[in-house]
């Protein structure tokens, strides 16, 4: 492994996409869909998960790692250990952060960060405080097409947009459960709705289905067939647009190639900022 730390000598922050949202909104599924594989745990059950950092590795197998609670040393995990680090039913987890290095990761520079969802344990997802380590980060709020304009989501959008203008997008997931005319209507009125609620300029708004996208990439035809063709097309188009937005942002902020390894990624200022933020909210 080259001895390049993932933050160059000028201290340029790592390019990252930070995913947040209520539990069950589909953050992990969305990252899995971007990775074209089931790398992260997903579950309908409310769980306690530390932040997960996903980045591209040089090749070989997928590498899993963790930073045990209160320690600085990163440890490698087997896939089974990684998957079992998720705790259900209010049991606190043993790590401050987890990490996945995947050779098939489509983003060369980006670190994708999966943050714990808001649950019945705390009031809402932690909005990260602006920090130098997050200066090259894009914030993705994951919500659902049916419930996105709820008052709590709207106030989150407002705060994100104020804190990270131009680096914030909203994803309305689970568009595959309704009909095309309805998806179009919600999609086309999305930004208008935000603006009417005093969020101007409104952040980009994508309607998509992470589950359908993952099925597209993993060849789960059974699920694809269940969804009507016109809905499928609309959802796929939505996801493609979202992916392009990520690529564009990555191209804008990534200046040079970085090689990631467990130790450096889990001890990067980015990981530090994400962990601090979670701790401030007393999760895990």
């Amino acid at each position, binding site marked *: 492994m080259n001895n390049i730390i993932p933050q160059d000598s000028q201290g340029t922050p790592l390019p990252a996409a930070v995913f947040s949202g*209520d*539990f*069950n909104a589909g953050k992990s599924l969305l990252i899995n869909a971007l990775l074209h594989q089931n790398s992260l745990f997903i579950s*309908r*059950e*409310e769980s306690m998960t530390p932040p997960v950092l996903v980045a591209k590795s040089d090749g070989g197998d997928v590498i899993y790692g963790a930073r045990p609670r209160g320690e600085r040393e990163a440890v490698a995990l087997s896939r089974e250990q990684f998957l079992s680090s998720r705790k259900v*039913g*209010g049991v606190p987890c043993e790590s401050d952060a987890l990490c996945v290095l995947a050779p098939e990761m489509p983003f060369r520079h980006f670190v994708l960060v999966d943050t714990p969802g*808001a*649950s*019945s*344990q*705390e*009031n*809402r997802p932690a909005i990260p405080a602006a920090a130098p380590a997050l200066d090259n980060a894009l914030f993705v709020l994951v919500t*659902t097409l*049916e*419930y996105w*304009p*709820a*008052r*709590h989501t*709207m106030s989150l959008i407002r705060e994100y947009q104020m804190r990270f203008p131009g680096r914030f997008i909203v994803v309305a997931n689970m568009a*595959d*459960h*309704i*009909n*095309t005319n*309805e998806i179009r*209507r*919600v999609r086309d*009125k999305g930004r208008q709705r935000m603006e009417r*609620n005093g969020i101007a300029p409104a952040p980009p708004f994508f309607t998509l289905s992470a589950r359908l996208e993952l099925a597209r990439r993993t060849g789960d035809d*059974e699920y694809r*067939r*269940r*969804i*009507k063709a016109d*809905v499928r097309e609309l959802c796929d188009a939505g996801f493609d647009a979202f992916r392009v937005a990520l690529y564009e942002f990555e191209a804008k902020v990534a200046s040079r190639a970085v090689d990631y390894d467990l130790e450096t990624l889990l001890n990067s200022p980015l990981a530090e900022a994400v962990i601090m933020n979670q701790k401030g909210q007393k999760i895990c």
Partner: protein
Amino acid sequence: MLINPHQENREWLLTALDYLEEFAAQDEDYFGDRSYEAKAMAYQRAVVEDGKYRVVFLGAFNVGKSTAINAFLGGAYLPMDIEECTSRLTFIRKGEDLRLALQLESGASRNEIDALERSLAGIEAVVEISDDNRSLTVRCPDQNPDRMCKALEPLVTVSADECYPHLAPLRGKMESLTLFLPTDALDTDIVFIDTPGVHSISDTRQKITYDIIEHCHLVVLFVDSAFVGNVHDLNFIKRIITCRNRRVFFVLNKADKLENEEIDPRATHGPAAQLVETFRRNDIPDNADVFFLSGYRALRAIELDQGLLKLEEALEDNKLLIPTAVTERIVQSQEPERDLSAYLMGQSRFSHLRERLLDYLINENKSNAIVSLAGRFVYERAADYLISIRNTLKLARDPRKFDELRASREALMDRLKTIRETVGAALKTYGIRFQGGELDGAEVPGYVARMHGLLTEAAIEAQVVQPTLSWLRQDDHLKQACRDKFKPLALQLEHQVDTFVTAILGTLTESVEASEKEVSEIVAEQIGAARDLRANLMEPEKILHAQVESSVSGEYVAFGTGGALVGVMAGAAVGSVAPVIGTAIGAGIGGLLGAALGFLARLAWSEERWVTKLTPLVRQNALEMLLQGKADGARPIAALIAEYLENRGKAFEDAVKAELENALDAVQKESSSLLAREEEIRRERDAIIARLEPKESRLEGIRSRAESVLEEDPMPWAST
């Protein structure tokens, strides 16, 4: 001639509510939140007036309340949309024909009526107007649900503001909107209420829904089954359940999004279990029924049956999420409409909810519930208004009492302190009974210790393992178990564990409840004493007296606001542990199945050999499930019970303390507000006396009559 006491009580309640409403709205001697009180009173009067039992449908916007009500009514009468849809309360009642009744706050202008008629032009609806222009009736000639839906759209939907701006003035005047329809689904004495969703971005819509809650008799609460237990719903649920110990039907809607194995109304796994688990962790009493539903599928099935929905449209509807295999079967079927409708209806689980709800509504004593809710309301308000009036009167009659009031302030504070200490001591005893320790010179084991004393290895062997094995030896049970891959054995073990745990829980709960009741009585008495202090602020001898003779019995207090919560906490409402244990048992049984399956190759074994081989498996599983926990980290039932006991103890203590602080706070406020008015009261004594005396006797009359109404109708929680 027999006089119907209900009828008499009802009529009296109406006059009492009239008076209280006027008092709260206009009387210069009322010092509370005028607009809220007057409005609440007016609404409560309307409830008594029409004597209808109110069933309210609550939940987040878009969760499918209107769709489910439509399924109940057997047609899409109420507007539905993929975006936030309902913006106003819609009352739904049985009527002779299909019509919409609008009650307005003030008469509609000619322009407003024209605007309404124009917006209804496309559906051939007729508008009838009362003489005072305050009641409008919209009739749809052919009883078609779709037309009614179109008539409602400009009136009750969120999008109406954009699509029908010219009707805005009329919508602004709407006081209530009632949909009458000829249906067998509703009895004449029942009103369904469709509400705007909570979590709405609009404060107005949010408030409409929150305000209706305290005036309803039964709550049907909707949660999206894919997002069970999210914190936003949770806060709302907490509020509904803690507001009176009222019956709640929980509906996990949009169950079509779930996989079949996730749908488990017994709440041993899946979203239902998650809901119960979330309730447990948040100390929410969960004496509620949980139903899965796909309201959308049910409604579409009904429309297919009625020929209002075409087969092709249904098959093209992505929202119905019909599996490919089912579509293929339907297309080849002889009667595709009927088959698809049957499939959708079956999958929707609607009939289960409908039967349970209708059954509940038939068996519930509805007129009792209405009089009792209103009686309690009147009693609480009258008793509360009376205290300040009497205190002011005493000071006006004898201004020397101001000096006494000032002089006895310190004694008052002392008394409040004593009350706190008395309750504190009772809670301490309660705590010792919970945790164990020394009580009256004797060592008492805590509940957790007692549970461990009951849940021993020996007891498990005798009451779980051996009975399971003897079951195995009976009849053909062993053979059947082998044939069905040991599922019958697992079920039998589950049953034995269930019986065993239920017995232990029964024993523990009985003594926990006895202890809670004892503390509740002490707390009720002390809250009564605090009320007494507030009522007797000007009687130093009563304040100074070390042992306040509470003229207020525990029962009296239980009627009041203060006692209500304590009464509830003392009952079964702190939360049930049973569903959680059910989950643990369900999960535990899996292990036995896996291990036993390995034996299946040995079919040649004799029966005794089988039993010998299975015995350690059964024993190990029972022990792991109950005492030791599983290798995969699943916690044993003993730990779950221990945690439940601790939570229950804490929830009770917190509730008691909060209630007590409220009562004590009221005393201090009363005393300082009276002193602040000293000058005015001294100056205008005679006028004040002349003014207050009739009010005092009126309120006292109402209070004591309401008390006797309540004695005829026991509190809902007294029966549970």
